[in-house]
């Protein structure tokens, strides 16, 4: 009985939230909520790669881009195709998953830092191609991107009509997908596959010796994470109505990574928390400008560089002071503290000197 009450309470809060926000702070903030939900999905996707499997991906935004451009190409005047969203979203997710496997296949056997650089390079390559594939044939629309993307339609009901309610309609759509993403993440974490990911993260050699095909399982993490990204990309394209390479920069990848790290790698609730915090933070910082103005009479620190400054600082501080994240799962905390202790105490359990 208590559980049902709790559930009902959460449901009620989530249902009322957009309207309350809209009334209290205006529609811009509801839009911010919508984006926060998209980031939740992205962070959960990256969490599978970084948090569950322990692979550092610095180019995650590339999968977001693939999903978004898939949608843009299949539902806009660009090619004259107007497929419905329930066909395109899976296509986008699938395409992103394929890209994930293409990237992962040759690179997942590299050690951690190399993998990080390669994924970073991949993310940049995707962005460079998106920027330049408008000649000789206009595929991606180049720097201008693709415009006039169809909004998401459920039957004859378009989420963009009436325009005054768009942000609310999309809120509930995104909420649905975000909840589904969280649900899938939880299921995966406590499954046979989730255990295999954890084993690889702990000790890849031992995992392999116990019969886990580490290459395939890592590839699976990459592909799943990528497809979550692709799914969010499709939703983003339908929401914004417009995509361009500018939305898919390295900064975005790093921000999503920050969300996962800050929230606690591998901890689903923490990651959701991190995503919401970091997507709302930049907006909150907008008030800093006028605040500085009134306090100091001028802008001391440009708000957008302040935002990035805080990101950088927070990454450093979290790693130094609270490496398990601001809201870590108990298991992860153990893991990160363990490394410090065992290395100091020369515990022979960790190193295999036999080879």
């Amino acid at each position, binding site marked *: 009985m208590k559980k049902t009450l709790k559930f009902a309470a959460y449901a009620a809060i989530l249902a009322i939230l957009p309207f309350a926000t809209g009334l209290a702070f205006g529609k811009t903030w509801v839009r911010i909520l919508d984006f926060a939900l998209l980031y939740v999905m992205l962070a959960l996707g990256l969490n599978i790669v970084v948090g569950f499997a322990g692979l550092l991906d610095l180019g995650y935004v590339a999968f977001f881009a693939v999903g978004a451009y898939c949608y843009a190409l299949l539902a806009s005047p660009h090619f004259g195709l107007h497929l419905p969203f329930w066909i395109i979203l899976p296509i986008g997710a699938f395409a992103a998953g394929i890209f994930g496997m293409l990237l992962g296949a040759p690179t997942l056997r590299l050690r951690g830092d190399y993998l990080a650089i390669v994924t970073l390079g991949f993310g940049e390559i995707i962005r460079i191609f998106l920027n330049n594939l408008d*000649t000789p044939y206009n595929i991606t629309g180049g720097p201008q991107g693709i415009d006039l993307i169809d909004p998401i339609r459920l039957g004859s009901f378009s989420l963009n009509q009436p325009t005054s309610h768009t942000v609310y309609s999309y809120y509930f759509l995104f909420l649905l997908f975000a909840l589904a993403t969280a649900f899938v993440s939880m299921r995966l974490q406590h499954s046979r596959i989730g255990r295999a990911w954890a084993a690889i993260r702990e000790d890849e050699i031992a995992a392999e010796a116990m019969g886990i095909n580490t290459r395939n399982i890592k590839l699976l993490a990459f592909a799943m994470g990528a497809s979550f990204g692709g799914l969010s990309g499709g939703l983003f394209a339908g929401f914004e109505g417009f995509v361009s390479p500018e939305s898919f920069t390295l900064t975005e990848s790093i921000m999503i*990574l920050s969300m996962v*790290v800050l929230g606690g790698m591998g901890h689903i609730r923490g990651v959701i928390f991190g995503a919401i915090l970091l997507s709302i933070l930049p907006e909150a910082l907008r008030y800093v400008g006028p605040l500085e103005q009134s306090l100091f009479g001028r802008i001391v620190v440009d708000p957008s560089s302040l935002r990035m400054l805080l990101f950088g600082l927070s990454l450093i501080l979290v790693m130094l002071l609270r490496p398990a994240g601001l809201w870590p799962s108990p298991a992860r905390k153990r893991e*990160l503290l363990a490394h410090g202790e065992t290395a100091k105490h020369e515990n022979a359990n960790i190193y295999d000197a036999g080879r």
Partner: protein
Amino acid sequence: MDTFLQQLINGIVLGSIYSLVALGYTLVYGIMGLINFAHGDIVMVGAMVTLTVARLLADSGLPGPVILGIGVLTAIPACMAVGYLVERIAYRPLRNAPRLAPLITAIGVSILLQNLAMMIWGREYLSFPQIFPAQTMAVGGASISTIQFLIIVSSAIMMAGLSRLIRKTRLGNAMRATAQNPEIATLMGVHVNTIISITFVLGSALAAVAGMMVSAYYGIAHYDMGFILGLKAFTAAVLGGIGNIEGAMLGGLLLGIIESMGAGYLGTLTGGVMGSNYQDAFAFFVLILVLVFRPSGLLGERVGERP
């Protein structure tokens, strides 16, 4: 043939710069097993400081090379200080943390440095004052400018000096010992922490000089320039074999030449489909190719026994 030679010269110049930066990456990776993401941004600091000094002295009547010299002599301590602080504050506490942690911190440091630079110097591209006469020497159908010449010569000198340092001095021995096996090095009386700091500082000094070269050569500097340059230099280090000093030098030169040739000929090769705007993607392609087909690099990697 003229274009070929010209591109080759350009490539060597570019490669010399890459080599200097790659050395920083390779020294740090060899001794700590860490990719110092922020290294490219230290190059940026060097570039900015040199440029600022050059602008201040541009009308003083001093000859070009002297201004540059003063600029570099200011940049070197600045970069060394930054490198030292970064190592002490952000990397040293994480020596025993799982691999992911210092990587993430390094990203944070990089972001921090870039944004501090943006706050100090602003967002715009800053231009390097014209302090060199636009002289060129003719070399077999191509031309080489004063700056290009200076870059090639000073890089060569510095690399020779570094080589000698690593090979023939006590400090160099200590550095190599620490890179191979820090635990045993400690037992042999090496102050590992000090050696690591020195390595960082050395790499930063090289970065300062590279920064000076980049800003003087291209005539511009901005807060964002460290990132791509750093990535390319890292590619060069991996290409030659990470942890391997000669590898960094070779890798740098090779990458510079590949990139220069590529930029020159890519258009003709692909029938106009891909132009030099794909130039940056080049380095990434090379990186991926190297890591997939020959991850230990051309000359083999030199990393110690590390858990």
